[in-house]
């Protein structure tokens, strides 16, 4: 079933409100206590029994074009800030209310003929020889997240100016300043992928009803995520911000579910040793707070001797002082009537995302072993990267149409 968030608009919101389980908590009138880091969501999210932060269940990415020519005006800046503040008053800043970040692309900073000061923000490009993604070049991207689909739709209607209140609180719009170039939607969390399996790219009835993601396994283990501190820009005018990568990936899971065995799925997602020793139960709840890939061989050895290398196994080596480099906030999607993944990640520098993604390519394993470019090479066989975008999430105090060198 297509979700109300995927459909969007006033009628979807109305339908959603009819079915809604109860009141959404409103925000505080005094916004001064809100964190300077837009991306500081972990303290505002629920956690599971193992202490892993649970990403909000519904997501909306609005790709935005600034309607003005050249550099933004002060009045447009005030319009944007005022609209965002009204949302912060309308919804509690949590998974039960509304979480959001607003980021800006290199294309936006071109308006100032400059790159953002002190930030590694290259233009998006292909990151594997077998991909040919479109480069997303909106000026900005707004990422909205909530366990409540009606909160996302209410916020969107308010920003677009279709409504002047959200969650019974008065709001202001940024209509006339931003136009929506693209609207992307999705979900993550136990049961949601199985509920949305009537799209191409995933066989109906194949996804475990407990799985938070289409591929049938948990991810986002605490031990495999960077901390928010680790992804935060430390100095310069954008200190307190972070960079964001957002790609859209089509999933082809017919082979995954109809041709691969459970052994192969566990070997390719985690590592062959996990498959050999039945270490993963169901969707992987038994793994606790990490994917336990410490118990896997190193990826080159597995590739040479077992002819297959797991996705988590490849990612394990991408660490600095023991910490992963990126913080994943990804979610699945039915956009375009097919199973997909919006891979949203946060990192201090885009280069750290690129380094992580290069490890996922498993190029060394492919060149030096039985593992192919995609064959038995983690989960590369099942994904097609359609688009990539890179953004700067400024600190909250500079989130409204910032200058490149403020």
């Amino acid at each position, binding site marked *: 079933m297509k979700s109300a968030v995927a459909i969007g608009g006033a009628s979807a919101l109305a339908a959603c409100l009819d079915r809604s389980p109860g009141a959404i908590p409103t925000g505080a009138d005094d916004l001064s206590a809100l964190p300077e880091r837009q991306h500081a969501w972990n303290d505002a999210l629920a956690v599971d029994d193992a202490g892993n932060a649970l990403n909000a269940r519904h997501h909306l990415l609005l790709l935005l074009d600034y309607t003005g020519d050249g550099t933004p005006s002060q009045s447009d800046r005030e319009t944007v800030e005022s609209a965002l503040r009204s949302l912060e008053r309308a919804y509690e800043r949590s998974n039960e209310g509304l979480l959001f970040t607003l980021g800006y692309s290199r294309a936006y900073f071109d308006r100032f003929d400059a790159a953002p000061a002190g930030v590694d923000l290259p233009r998006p490009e292909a990151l594997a020889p077998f991909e040919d993604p479109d480069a997303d070049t909106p000026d900005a991207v707004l990422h909205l997240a909530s366990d409540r689909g009606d909160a996302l739709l209410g916020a969107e209607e308010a920003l677009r100016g279709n409504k002047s209140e959200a969650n019974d609180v008065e709001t202001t719009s940024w209509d006339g300043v931003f136009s929506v170039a693209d609207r992307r939607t999705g979900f993550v969390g136990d049961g949601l992928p199985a509920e949305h399996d009537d799209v191409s790219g995933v066989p109906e009835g194949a996804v475990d009803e407990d799985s938070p993601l289409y591929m049938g396994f948990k991810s986002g283990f605490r031990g495999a995520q960077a901390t928010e501190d680790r992804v935060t820009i430390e100095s310069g005018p954008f200190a307190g911000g972070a960079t964001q990568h957002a790609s859209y990936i089509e999933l082809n899971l017919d082979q995954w579910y109809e041709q691969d065995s459970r052994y192969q799925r566990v*070997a390719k997602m985690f590592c062959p040793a996990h498959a050999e020793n039945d270490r993963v139960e169901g969707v992987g709840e038994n793994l606790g707070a990490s994917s336990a890939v410490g118990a896997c061989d190193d990826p080159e050895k597995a590739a040479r001797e077992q002819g297959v290398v797991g996705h988590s196994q490849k990612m394990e080596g991408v660490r600095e002082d023991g910490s992963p480099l990126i913080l994943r906030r990804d979610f699945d999607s039915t956009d375009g009537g097919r199973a997909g993944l919006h891979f949203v990640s946060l990192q201090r520098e885009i280069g750290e995302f690129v380094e992580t993604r290069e490890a996922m390519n498993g190029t060394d394993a492919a060149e030096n072993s039985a593992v192919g470019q995609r064959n038995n090479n983690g989960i590369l066989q099942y994904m097609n990267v359609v688009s990539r975008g890179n953004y700067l999430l400024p600190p909250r105090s500079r989130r409204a149409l910032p200058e490149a060198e403020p």
Partner: protein
Amino acid sequence: MNRRRFLAAAGAASTAGLAGCLDALGFGRQSSAYAPPLIEDRPNAVYYPTHVEGMKSFGMATDGPYTCALTYSYPHRFWLVTGTRTNKVTIRSEDSIHVMPVVWHEETGIVPPAANPSVEFALPDGEESVPSVSPWPMISQPMGVHFGDNVAIPRNGDYTATVTVAFGSSKRTGALADAPDSAAFEFEFTYLAERVDTIPYRTLDNAGEHGAVEPHDMAVPTNQLAPEPDLPGTLLASGTSGDAAVPVVAVDDAARFGSRESDSYLAASPRTPYNRFPLPMASVSARATAGGDVVHDGALTATLDPDLGYHYGAPVSETPDSVTISFDAPPQVARHEGYETAFLDMPPVRTN
């Protein structure tokens, strides 16, 4: 009676176009299997499959130095390989064809085996969803190395298909080294389900016996390797492993393999028996000595060379007089019937 039982009853009927007559008899394509039961007690070696099918093509296209033929046949059962385990993939009721993009380098006729292509089908209205597939690298007795997967084409009609492929993970030499890393091919064709049923199909009397059917006489290269006596260089070893033939040669002048002209080059060329198809995507290593000195001890690199074809090699400072070739992981290429029990348990091959 379904197609499978009909075929079993038909036994040795070697009839081209048999499948076409099945439709006339009312055997709906959607409800029947395309393959007779597997032979019991299959040998752990290359064997004649239960049946052989012909193939058809949706057309050919070129991109730079590469050509692609988008071929198809009946849906197939095949086996995926992970480590030394095989996993049989059965035909789904909705599968309509086995699609096989065959991509080769025109100048050398070489089929790069280690890339995984994508095939996107589309109907002109763009409304109906048509599956895109990422066919697996696989080997079959009639076709050798190709890419293939079963796919459900939703209905008869005019289609476009885009095949994209990247050749990243094998080292390439000579004219192949200068060729681009990726290619894309566009096809337009009319799909008619009834045309699939006119593809020749015959069952084999000698199914299960050691041996292999002849390669198709095709308009596309089958990538057969040179017979052992015709391999360049000095033959160092000639053994078998897991029913694969494994000639090992040393050739003079390792320059085109990224080393010095004064070095020689050690190459292992594992291939299927009978048809001499390369066995890609294995982890192969070698220990080689010359006059008692170790000249190589470690992995061999999967390489595409215009003269040697697909092989595993390494430059060595001196031509070895003794060599041991080990298979750390067997070829991870998917297998069609007749190849799925071979090339899995692969002991070392040594100089005689």
